[in-house]
Structure formats: C-alpha cells, structure tokens
C-alpha cells in the first residue's frame, strides 16, 4: 500500500512524509496517552543541607505543551528541571512521566532528553557523532543512525556540518547541535535549561521563534527554564513563576501578566506597580495608566520624579500625593525625546479603569 502510493507521488511529498514519519511524536518510543499529563510532580522537595532548593512543588504539564519554569536565579526552577531529568533525587514527593512513577528511575531510563545550559557537547566527537550518541548507546546500526542524524541536522538548519568538531562552531550553532542531539531520540518530553542564555539578543530572538516553531511541528512537550520574563511570555503555552523554592503562580502568559496573584509575580513578570489604598493592595500595569495634566479631571495627583526615554516608549516614575509611586509607560506617538525629558517635575494626574487593577495578597499573608 505504502510503496504503491509513494512511488507515484512527487518526490517532495515523499520526503515530507518521510520526515513526518521519523520526527512526528506518533513515532516516539513512548507514546503520549490522551488525558495523562506528560509530567507530573507532586509534593517534590529537595534540600542541600540547610538550604531548601525546592519546597513542596506540585506541577502538571500536559502532553504537547510548551511549559516554562520562570524565576530568578536560586528560585528552584533549575533544580525542578533536574528532578524531572533524574539528576536530582527528591527528598520527598513523586515524579511521574506519562502517568508512570519514575521517582526512583535513573536518568538513562527516563523518556526525557535535556538541552543543557552550557550545551555539554562532547568535545572529542564530531557534530554527527554527538547527535548520534543517544542512538549509538541504544545499539542502533551505524547507517540508520547516520541518516537520522543528518535528517535532524537539516531540521535544525545545520546541514553538512556533521564532520566538524564542536569547537569549530559558533555559539548559536553549538546550541542547535545540542538541540539536535536531544530531539534525534524523539523524546516525548524535552527539557531545556536556559538554552538561549549564552546567546546575544538578536540570535536569542531568532532562536525563540525557531524553538517555538520546532515545538509545534514536533508536538513534543517542552519544559523550558528561563529567568527572562519576556522569553517566558512570548514562548509559553503556560508558565509557572518560581520564587524561593516554590511556585507563586501557574497560568497562561496573559493570565500571569494581567492577573498577578502576588506582589512577587507582579514585580517579576513586568513592572512592580503596587499601590496600597484603604487597606487593599492592588497592582496596575504601567501601560494601562492614563497620565493627564493636573487640571484634567479626577484620578490620583502626583509629580513626575523620573523620565526614562526608551525609544518606542517613555517610562515615567510618578510620586503620588496619596503615598507610593507608580510607573507609567507612554508610547512616543507624537512626543520627541526632548519633550519627554522636559516633563520631569511636572504635576500630573493618573487614572485607570477599575477593571485593570488586581487585588493581591499582602506580603506574608
């Protein structure tokens, strides 16, 4: 059936079909099961002596999801990733992959692969040997793994570089070799530990788009660790914000950005604009605030303390007469930099729509 049809089809279609057959998740060694989360952590705790790296983390990541663990350094996000990979044994709690408890399974036996922050390419092997490594240790014949490696190198846009040594590649190329070395094994879950951290801004933005496309095409679950809130917001289907070893909030990017549930999340994802009025603490995103002349209607009166011109927008820090300060962002639609900077010290009035404020819990309650 297959050969009968395939021969009559145009060559290109056959290639695409071949690619899909080799790279699509349906070909994964471990099939995702509908309804069962790809990754589930329950009550995971990891301590190093007195230091609690991860405290009681619960997490469910659906199959095919791009899930980001976001947080500052030392917040426990990388330790959580390493618990999923199996490099760290949790002191308490369970790790499940595809519904199977793997808490006590060694990394080599887990159906996940990792893209390391420093890439961890084997320096004595060529690019092709690096990519083939996972297939080689599983005993796949040389010709078969060679063709699979070539395919994946094409996929990450590194065709024909198989004979080079890692040291001969640029940082961006090494990053993609690390990616190829992981996805060639067709893991149902791919773990990425700040994979773009060592790249410059321009390359990082290109790779963000590339990774997102790749994830959609392969339909693999990505668990992505980053401290870059913009990266987390642009790439993720859902994200978990980590702080001090625990998860502060889990949700879609829009959810987390617009409805931060804690002061920490409000500050870490975006700008911390927290105001206390009448015993309530609320947060307002800077772009949702309207700034008018002091005479212009109602709202909170205040003085512009600081003006930062950032090209597309200008950022103002306003001291409010009623106490506290707010950051306001305005697009430079008709304002020049001189005009913007001249506004320092000006009296203004700030207003916003009530539905754009979100009440957050008091610190420590």
């Amino acid at each position, binding site marked *: 059936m297959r050969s009968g049809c395939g021969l009559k089809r145009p060559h290109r279609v056959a290639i695409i079909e071949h690619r899909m057959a080799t790279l699509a998740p349906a070909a994964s060694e471990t099939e995702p099961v509908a309804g069962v989360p790809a990754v589930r952590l329950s009550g995971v705790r990891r301590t190093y002596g007195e230091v609690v790296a991860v405290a009681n983390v619960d997490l469910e990541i659906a199959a095919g999801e791009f899930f980001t663990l976001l947080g500052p350094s030392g917040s426990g996000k990388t330790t959580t990733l390493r618990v999923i*990979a*199996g*490099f760290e044994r949790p002191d308490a709690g369970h790790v499940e992959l595809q519904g199977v408890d793997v808490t006590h399974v*060694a*990394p*080599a*036996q887990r159906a*996940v*692969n*990792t893209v*390391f*922050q*420093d*890439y*961890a*390419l*084997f*320096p*004595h092997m060529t690019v092709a040997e690096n990519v083939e*490594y*996972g297939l*080689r*240790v*599983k005993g796949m014949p040389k010709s078969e793994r060679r063709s699979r490696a070539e395919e994946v190198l094409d996929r990450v846009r590194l065709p024909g570089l198989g004979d080079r*040594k890692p*040291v*001969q590649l640029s*940082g961006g190329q090494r990053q993609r070799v690390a990616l190829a*070395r*992981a996805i060639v*094994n067709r893991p149902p879950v791919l773990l990425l530990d700040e994979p773009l*951290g*060592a790249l410059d801004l321009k390359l990082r933005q290109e790779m963000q788009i590339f990774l997102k496309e790749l994830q959609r095409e392969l339909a693999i679950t990505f668990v992505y660790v980053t401290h870059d809130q913009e990266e987390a917001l642009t790439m993720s289907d859902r994200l978990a914000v980590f702080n001090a070893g625990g998860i502060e909030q889990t949700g879609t990017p829009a959810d987390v950005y617009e409805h931060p549930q804690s002061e920490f999340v409000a500050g870490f994802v975006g700008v911390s604009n927290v105001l206390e009025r009448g015993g309530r603490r609320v947060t307002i995103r800077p772009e949702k605030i309207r700034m008018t002349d002091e005479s212009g209607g109602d709202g909170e009166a205040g003085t512009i303390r600081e003006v930062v011109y950032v090209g597309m927008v200008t950022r103002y820090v306003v001291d409010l007469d009623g106490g506290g300060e707010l950051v306001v962002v305005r697009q430079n639609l008709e304002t020049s930099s001189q005009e913007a900077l001249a506004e320092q010290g000006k009296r203004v009035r700030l207003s916003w729509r009530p539905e754009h404020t979100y009440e957050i819990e008091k610190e420590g309650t």
Partner: protein
Amino acid sequence: MTQRGTRISLAVWTALVIAFLWIPLVIIALYAFNGPTLQGWPISNWTLHWFRVAWDSDARSALWLSLRVGLIATGLALVLGTMAATAVARFRFFGREAVSFLLVLPLALPGIITGIALNRALFSTLALSPSLWSIVIGHATFCVVLVYNNVVARLRRSSPSLLEASQDLGADGWQTFRFVLWPVLSTALVAGGLLAFALSFDEVIVTTFTAGAQETLPIWILDNIERGQQLPVVNVVAFFVIVATTIPVMLAQRMMRDTGLIRRAGGPVTEAVEAAEIPAI
C-alpha cells in the same frame, strides 16, 4: 629595526639557546662511543665496546630498579592524582583549597627537605627498612602532583554536564566511561603519567634519603662519577638515560597538544579561545 632584522635576530637567539641546552648532551652522547678510557677531544677511536661493558655491569640492576620504581610510582600517581583532581574539580567541600595547596607544596619544597623528612618518618619513626617501596613513596610525593595538575586542568576546561549529558542520552555507566570520560581524560592522564615517569626515572635527591643501600640508575651514575671509575660506562648510561627520558617527554608534549579539543581545528583555534567561549558554571 626592520621586521626582517627582528626575525633574523630572533632566529639567531633561538638557535643559540637551543645550542646552549643541547651541546653538552650531544657531547656526552658522543663520548659513549669513545674508545679510550681517558676522555679526550676529538674522539679518536669509535667503538660500541662500552655498551657491552655497561650491560654486564651492575648498571643493569640499577636500571631494573629504576624502571620498577618509576612504573609503580606512576601507577600510584595516576590513581591518587585522578581521585584528588576529581574531588577538587567536581565537588565543593570544607578544605578544598587546602587540599590543592597541600598536594602541590611537596613539588615546590626543596627535594632535600622532602628527602630528610621521609627518611626520618619512614626509618626512624615508623622503623621500616629501606626497600623498593620506600623509594616509591618518595617518588609518589611529586608524581601525584603532576598527574593531579594535568587532570584538574582538563576537568576545569571541560563542561561539568558532560557525564550527565551522556546519562541523559541513555548511556549506562560503562558506556559513559568508555565513550565520554576516558576520551576526555585519557590524554591528560597519559601526559601526566609520562611526565611523572620521566621525573621519577632521574630523581636523585629524595631517592638518596629513601633508598638505603639500593642503587637506582641516577644514583649508580653519581656513585661511579664520585669514585672516578668506569667513566666510559657512565657515558653509555647517560646516553641511555637521555634517550629514555626524551621519548616520554616528547610523547607527553604531543599528547597535550593533541587533546581532541583543538585537533584538526583547521584554523588558529587555541585552547584560550575554547576556554573563553564556554561559559564557566
């Protein structure tokens, strides 16, 4: 000065320095083929006679002792040096810096101090008698450092996640050792081991204090020169030692260069560049 002038004077100086280092070695090597018992220049009568005499003399048993000591000390150094290097490079523990310092210090200490200290400790305090092992212990004090330094440098240069990456890709312990750890460390081990052996092979000072009545090859040479007898045989032995020392050091140098990190780099890629491009974790 013109660039051409600079190049010529540099070449001349380099040649002079190399000549300064090598001419004495070449002369003693040539004397090994000198016929008469009394040394005179130029060599009048070329012969291999003294090689035969040397082979029949007690220099042979001295050589055998030196080889055994060198091999055992090197083996010991490979095991202990690698273990210490792994601990220092990979783990953080109380006193880590001190370990590094304590390991390197014996190499910097004058050999005569190490020698007398070992002599007191082994033969007076512990009341042992001189043996092959007392010499081995003396040599191990500096051999361990050589291996340690080589391996630490290699580990620091390579990513700490290499072994995790191997496991992550499904390799078992043996595969990780064979495909990743051994290739990454082997050249550093071989280079360190060769240097250690070369150093052990011509060590005199520490050996004097730990050997008792036993004679390693360098000590045999020293004794025979002092007594003024058998000078032609000493020349032969010196010739042999030069050759035997040069070969491992040359190999070691080649190994250090040929680390795989920079092999076939096809360009002016240096280790410094490599180190700079991989972010330190």
